[in-house]
């Protein structure tokens, strides 16, 4: 009797403790949320976290100086497509800074972003750009210099799955663009090349960072294909002695489009802030910061400063080879389209 009363009180006590804990923790969370005044949410692709972690404080300071207002900036990162989907389903992002035009276009089609969004900012609303480049192991043992070397029999490639990653799609389109040029548009040869290229893939991670982990941490493959900015960042992160960056002579222009999510920004009362935030990306200082992260930029002064860092490369645009992003998506990436056909066994 004694015993059972005892443990019943014990039970009650632990439930009580749990309830109190909940209340305390809940207040703590809501406090952090309440503490800020205006708050801008930037929804971005998954590998831009460090980049915007560097830009945001600069912008906050600038805005404070200009407008005397303290603001907060939140970041949401994920696969660019997943981010767009989340916004369509109600993620209240004020601005998007993506790595693929189609993902912004989806929002425009849904009416969340102005239809003429590409005209809203300079350079097709792409404050910086990059291309697709290779990261190879020390001394480049497989002698990889360009895309055709990737179709060699003994080469193992690592890049993210084009189905799940914008980064992976760029790689696929870049290889295709190269082949288109190399084989003068001979569809059969292009497809043969692409088939071999895809067969050399060792691992298809779902995102860019997963591919990096496979290549660096797990030691898989001879070459990692990713954005030029990314491979340079990886090299400086993991040691310039162990890896080399190869920028192929021909590659694709990867635009990093930005847009204000009009509906959300308006609703959040952040329209002015959102506009300024994206404009801020074009300022010389910011462009320098972007170049520091190995992105190619448009500002003449900064371009001159960083000329050594970015080798001259022939960059073709998606529109040049594939007509438009819509056509590229439809012909290559949709279920049953070329990518699926090329991978069929």
């Amino acid at each position, binding site marked *: 009797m004694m015993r059972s009363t005892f*443990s*019943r009180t014990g039970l009650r006590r632990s439930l009580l403790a749990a309830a109190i804990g*909940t209340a305390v*923790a809940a207040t703590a969370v809501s406090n952090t949320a309440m503490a800020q005044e205006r708050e801008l949410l930037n929804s971005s692709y998954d590998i831009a976290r460090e980049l915007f972690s560097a830009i945001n404080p600069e912008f906050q300071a600038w805005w404070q100086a200009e407008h005397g207002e303290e603001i907060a900036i*939140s970041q949401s990162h*994920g696969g660019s497509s997943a981010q767009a989907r989340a916004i369509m389903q109600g993620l209240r992002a004020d601005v998007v800074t993506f790595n693929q035009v189609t993902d912004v276009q989806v929002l425009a089609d849904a009416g969340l972003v102005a239809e003429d969004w590409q005209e809203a900012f300079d350079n097709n609303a792409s404050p910086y750009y990059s291309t697709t480049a290779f990261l190879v192991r020390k001394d480049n043992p497989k002698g990889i210099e360009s895309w055709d070397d990737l179709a060699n029999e003994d080469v193992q490639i690592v890049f993210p799955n084009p189905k799940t990653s914008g980064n992976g799609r760029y790689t696929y389109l870049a290889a295709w663009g190269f082949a288109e040029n190399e084989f003068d548009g001979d569809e059969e040869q292009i497809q043969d090349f692409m088939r071999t290229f895809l067969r050399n893939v060792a691992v298809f991670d779902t995102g860019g960072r997963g591919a990096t982990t496979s290549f660096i941490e797990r030691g898989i493959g001879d070459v990692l294909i990713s954005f030029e900015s990314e491979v340079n960042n990886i090299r400086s992160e993991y040691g310039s002695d162990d890896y080399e960056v190869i920028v192929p002579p021909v590659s694709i222009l990867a635009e990093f489009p930005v847009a204000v999510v009009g509906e959300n920004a308006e609703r959040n009362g952040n329209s002015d802030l959102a506009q300024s935030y994206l404009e801020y990306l074009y300022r010389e200082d910011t462009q320098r910061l972007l170049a520091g992260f190995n992105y190619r930029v448009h500002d003449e002064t900064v371009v001159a400063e960083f000329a050594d860092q970015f080798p001259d490369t022939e960059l073709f645009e998606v529109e040049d080879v594939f007509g438009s992003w819509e056509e590229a998506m439809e012909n290559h990436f949709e279920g049953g389209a070329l990518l699926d056909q090329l991978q069929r066994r």
Partner: protein
Amino acid sequence: MRRIGDAPAVRRLLIGAALLLSALFLLLPLVAIFAQAFSQGVMVFWANVSNTFTLHAIGLTLVIALLTIPVCLVFGVALAWLVTRFSFPGRRILQTLIDIPFAVSPVVAGLIYLLLYGRNGWIGSWLDTHDIQLMFAWPGILMVTIFVTCPFVARELIPLMQAQGSREEEAAVTLGAGGWTTFRRVTLPNIRWALLYGIILTNARAVGEFGAVSVVAGAIRGKTNTLPLHLEQLYQDYNAVGAFASAALLALIALLTLAAKAGLEWRAARQEAFL
């Protein structure tokens, strides 16, 4: 007493095999987590853990777990009481329905909530016009967490309450006890260990859920990042040590959970031995 498989050679072989396999299969991953977390020293580990975003993720994770538990508790007890104490048409169907969360892949679980409560969903669009946001905010995380954890308490209780039968409750009712009194004084003492075990399982899953939460959380660092999401982001950011530091925290929660469970079982066994 002699039993099958008692021969020393057999015994040693089986125990050895079990220990070896468990060590390789279960213990080694656990060790690896902590080894990775501390691979650059305690200070780096501590820096990662005491980071604002990590702390926030811990806080959010715990709040979600603590809010999930009472909901699952009420539902689990109500359902167990219903299907073990009454017979009515559709009882078996109810019992199978609670298995749905086990059959649904967590990513799909997140998706179906998103489709319903997201801006384009038929409830979500109504909510949106009234400026109520559930998805990509903590209520959404809570909702999917409840979805994936709701079977645990019920599943623990149902077999036990079935085995115990309703004789004791009937006796209480004949003695004039009311419903609540009967439950509190007769039923609850009998099921409390199973109940606590159910809560522990619920808690473990609520703390660790990744797939479903990742779909509805929106991954806003410092706002809707739970610990498992935070871990994944750190991993994505080449911060393997940071990721494993978070993993170590989650593993620590897991270990505490296991310890709590072992403690409960031990207590329950001891109590049984006394009776």
